[in-house]
């Protein structure tokens, strides 16, 4: 009831004095205040503490006139002082002075009044524990305005930003400090510019400001990321299947959560352009620095960074963004040809670079590709463990993929032999040539295979038809003779 009364009174006040700030210009200061400002209204005046720290004794007259305390004379707060009396004070340091000053505020502002604002709850608790909250940390001493600063608060965000644009911190149990200062932008670049603070910070409002107590800064980040699922439930469920979530649930708190990649208050819109793609790789880089360095030098990475090429894959194209799988599993290994094939079998992507789209098919129909496909089926249907079969990345590399066009053929062959020898022990340099390097046999490339294959392609149908013709004639003759 009391609260409603306050709200109604406030609205009436706001309606009655739409330009409250300007009206204040006419406030008449007390004679005492005018007299004090004769000295303290001049810049440069300061007080020095015993420890050589100093505090500015200057009071901005204009701001003071606008302040909620302008109706008071100086001696209401500075109790020992008057127009006749200006005692000399002696403080050890600035901290002692600030604590003392705060005590003055409490002369008027009772604990009940302070407690009525939920934002003060944490401070009062600290005070009970022996800390000394300093009012002037948030409320400037001489320019303190009404809560709304004389303005009408139009939105919840504005309300919250009243305090959270200030520099303030929250201390965790382990001593970590978390900045509560929000550099919030209402620009259109912010994907969340239409949201209210409480959409994410549920439980908080202009009425409620519960006290939170986190063990560490990391705990706070992880807990905050839980808010995202309220809107992005599909992405959230995907992350539950990700390797990041797995290691997080195993106790590794460094595993990334939503906020780590997407940020918290300045969340940009998704960009599929080169800028967005580069930005994405840099997000992964935060943890995977070594991989990033290797990728940046690869044919894909250099095309992205040096040529602003959007055709080349970035981290999430192969690893996905949310349901990131452990790439060291057999299941992932088996899917690699399809992952590479997403681009390399797509004419719209690779044809312009003079690359063949037959590479995937050439692999899948060859010995390794066939075995890989059958192993996958066996694993799925017979629950039979399968051996890892050489896939694209085994010969071409993973993050360090180089251009097959510009690579030294001798080097490529040497690497290939090394890979072959992993499974096929004691093979010599002839062995890698058993792989046709994705080429389709022709008279110029692998003529022996082309000739054998073509000969059978001609001979088998001719022979089949010849035999069928013989059979037909034999039956026909039999029928005629009959």
């Amino acid at each position, binding site marked *: 009831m009391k609260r409603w009364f306050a709200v109604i009174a406030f609205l009436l006040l706001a309606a009655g004095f739409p330009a409250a700030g300007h009206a204040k210009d006419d406030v008449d200061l007390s004679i005492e205040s005018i007299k004090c400002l004769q000295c303290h209204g001049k810049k440069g005046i300061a007080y020095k503490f015993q420890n050589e720290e100093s505090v500015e004794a200057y009071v901005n007259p204009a701001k003071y006139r606008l302040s909620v305390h302008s109706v008071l004379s100086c001696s209401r707060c500075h109790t020992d002082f008057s127009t006749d009396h200006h005692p000399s004070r002696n403080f050890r340091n600035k901290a002692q002075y600030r604590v003392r000053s705060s005590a003055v505020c409490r002369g008027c502002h009772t604990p009940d009044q302070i407690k009525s604002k939920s934002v003060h709850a944490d401070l009062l608790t600290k005070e009970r524990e022996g800390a000394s909250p300093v009012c002037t940390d948030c409320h400037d001493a001489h320019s303190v305005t009404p809560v709304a600063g004389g303005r009408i608060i139009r939105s919840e965000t504005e309300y919250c930003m009243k305090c959270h644009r200030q520099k303030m911190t929250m201390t965790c149990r382990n001593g970590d400090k978390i900045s509560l200062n929000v550099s919030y932008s209402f620009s259109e670049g912010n994907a969340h510019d239409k949201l209210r603070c409480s959409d994410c910070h549920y439980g908080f409002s202009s009425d409620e400001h519960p006290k939170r107590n986190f063990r560490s800064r990391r705990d706070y980040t992880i807990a905050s990321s839980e808010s995202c699922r309220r809107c992005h439930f599909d992405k959230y469920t995907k992350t539950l299947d990700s390797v990041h979530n797995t290691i997080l649930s195993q106790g590794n708190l460094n595993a990334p959560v939503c906020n780590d990649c997407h940020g918290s208050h300045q969340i940009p819109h998704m960009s599929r352009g080169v800028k967005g793609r580069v930005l994405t790789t840099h997000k992964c880089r935060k943890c995977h620095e070594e991989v990033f360095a290797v990728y940046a030098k690869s044919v894909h990475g250099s095309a992205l960074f040096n040529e602003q090429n959007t055709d080349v894959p970035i981290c999430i194209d192969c690893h996905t963004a949310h349901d990131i799988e452990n790439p060291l599993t057999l299941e992932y290994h088996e899917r690699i040809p399809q992952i590479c094939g997403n681009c390399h079998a797509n004419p719209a992507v690779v044809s312009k670079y003079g690359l063949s789209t037959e590479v995937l098919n050439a692999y899948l129909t060859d010995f390794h590709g066939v075995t890989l496909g059958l192993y996958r089926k066996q694993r799925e249907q017979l629950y039979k463990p399968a051996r890892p079969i050489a896939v694209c990345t085994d010969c071409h590399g993973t993050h360090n993929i180089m251009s097959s066009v510009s690579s030294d053929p001798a080097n490529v062959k040497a690497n290939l032999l090394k890979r072959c020898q992993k499974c096929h022990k004691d093979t010599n340099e002839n062995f890698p040539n058993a792989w046709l390097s994705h080429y389709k046999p022709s008279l110029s490339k692998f003529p022996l295979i082309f000739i054998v294959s073509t000969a059978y392609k001609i001979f088998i149908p001719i022979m089949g038809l010849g035999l*069928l013709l013989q059979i037909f004639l034999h039956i026909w003759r039999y029928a005629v003779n009959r």
Partner: protein
Amino acid sequence: MKDGKTKIRRFSTFRIAEHWMIILSSVVLFATGLCQRFWHVDSAQWFILKMGGIDNVRLVHRYMGLFFTFEILLHVGVAVGGVASRKWESSMFITREDLVASIHNIRYYFGLENHAARCDRYDYMEKFEYWTILIGGFLMIVSGAVLWLPTMVTRILPGEIIPAAKVLHSNEALLIFLINAIWHIYNSIFSPDVFPLDTSIFTGYISRDRMMREHPLELARIEGVEPNVLLGDGPPGVEEKAADSGTG
């Protein structure tokens, strides 16, 4: 004239055993081989999974290939030994008469001749089948060995030999399969002359009528008479054929 139903010994027990071994190895090799060639077909994948996976299929295929190699070597060894010791006539060798007989039969089918070609122990169709399978068998053994032991092979031969062997093995298998599926199965089961089954390779015996019709020159030699005398004025009648079908 002797009774047409008289049984004449055509195949020895060794040949009957050889045929059984070939049936066994062919069925297993075709089943485990074709499912690898046509791996993308659902039924092939079903078979591979029923076999317990591709590794099992390959294992069975390779060891049955070894058994097949043994059969072929045994067959060639016995044949070379038999011919060399002059015990046997080289009745399977292709001669000029086979070409003449094949042209004669085509003409006969078109009604240009009044009787079918008169053949000796093996007619040109049997020889064609035998040699395609024997030569094909050798190609399969060699290319199969290359695919089984690629590391050893590439120590002395270029790497390209492996995919070449794969193409050869795969296509030659299909060729042999088609010869068997179309030609051999027709001739020994579905041909009106033998339907429902030519049993001679299982029993070892053939009727005198079929000998007269299909291998008259051999029959004449067995009976010690001139072929012209044996055959009389005309060729064996079609009516005779129909009456005698299926006796093997």
